[in-house]
């Protein structure tokens, strides 16, 4: 094949067709979804990000290239744990009391920086937990600091 390039050769690049459908995983190995689409800047023609579909029926969300660590034809590894995936985890005090389940997260703009969690327990009102009150994020539970009073 003839090639006309001053940059990478064709064999050093990945086809969008093969990358689509690749698994997206977080640094801790959480499977976040699959690539639904690859987004390119129309001005600079550079790779800008990916659209990730959570499940075959799920909504898609956009991840900018700043949050992407590695790309291969089979998978993409992110460099951050998306705060979006805190939804569904339980917020637990240092006493082990479950404050509620995370229903949504409030971020700073479109970044991955968490501002607060909105948690809710059955038959109770929602509570807002500032990110400063989070001690540790685990697989199922978010452990809150001692200073947090439910």
């Amino acid at each position: 094949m003839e090639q006309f390039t001053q940059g990478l050769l064709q064999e050093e690049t990945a086809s969008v067709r093969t990358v689509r459908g690749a698994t997206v995983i977080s640094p801790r190995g959480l499977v976040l979804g699959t690539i639904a689409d690859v987004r390119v800047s129309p001005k600079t023609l550079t790779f800008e990000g990916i659209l990730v579909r959570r499940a075959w029926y799920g909504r898609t969300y956009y991840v900018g290239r700043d949050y992407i660590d590695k790309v291969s034809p089979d998978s993409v590894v992110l460099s951050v744990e998306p705060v979006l995936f805190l939804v569904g985890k339980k917020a637990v005090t240092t006493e082990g009391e479950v404050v509620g389940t995370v229903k949504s997260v409030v971020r700073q703009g479109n970044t991955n920086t968490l501002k607060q969690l909105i948690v809710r327990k059955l038959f109770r009102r929602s509570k807002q937990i500032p990110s400063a009150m989070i001690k540790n994020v685990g697989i199922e539970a978010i452990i809150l600091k001692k200073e947090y009073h439910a």
Partner: protein
Amino acid sequence: MPDPVDSFLTTDDILGKDVIDASGSFLGVVDKLFVDPDLIQITGISIDKGFLKNGFHVGVDTIKEIRDHAIFLKITPAATIRRMRVFDIDGKIIGTVKNVITLPNRNTIKEIIVKSHLFGKVLHVTPDFIKLVGDNVLLNIKKADLKGRFQEMFRSDKEE
């Protein structure tokens, strides 16, 4: 003067409590206490994972703290790694953890048995190839390099 007995815990304070491990996973509830009959000391607790699930027990030295609503462990039990997916260093899927072999009576992993997505074969992966265990298992080796090692492992399994 306050009675020191008032600060002691009873079985009511422990049995039925949630158990949360070091990785923030809810393991189950405490359903038994184990007591050494000679030393009259609590040596461990049994964790009930729920209906139709096999529970397990942990030693008292793995308990970090007992709080009002839950018991926090210092460790993440190796058994929880079962059924986790295994990825290589580039994020390519290798397979699923079929079993975890630990050192006798310890939580230290000796090897993990991975059912490879390559024709359903089985891999024995030692801890030196494990980068981290989080939501799933991430190895520090590429799939292509593991395949070379795998051929040796598979051959040695056959010979056994």
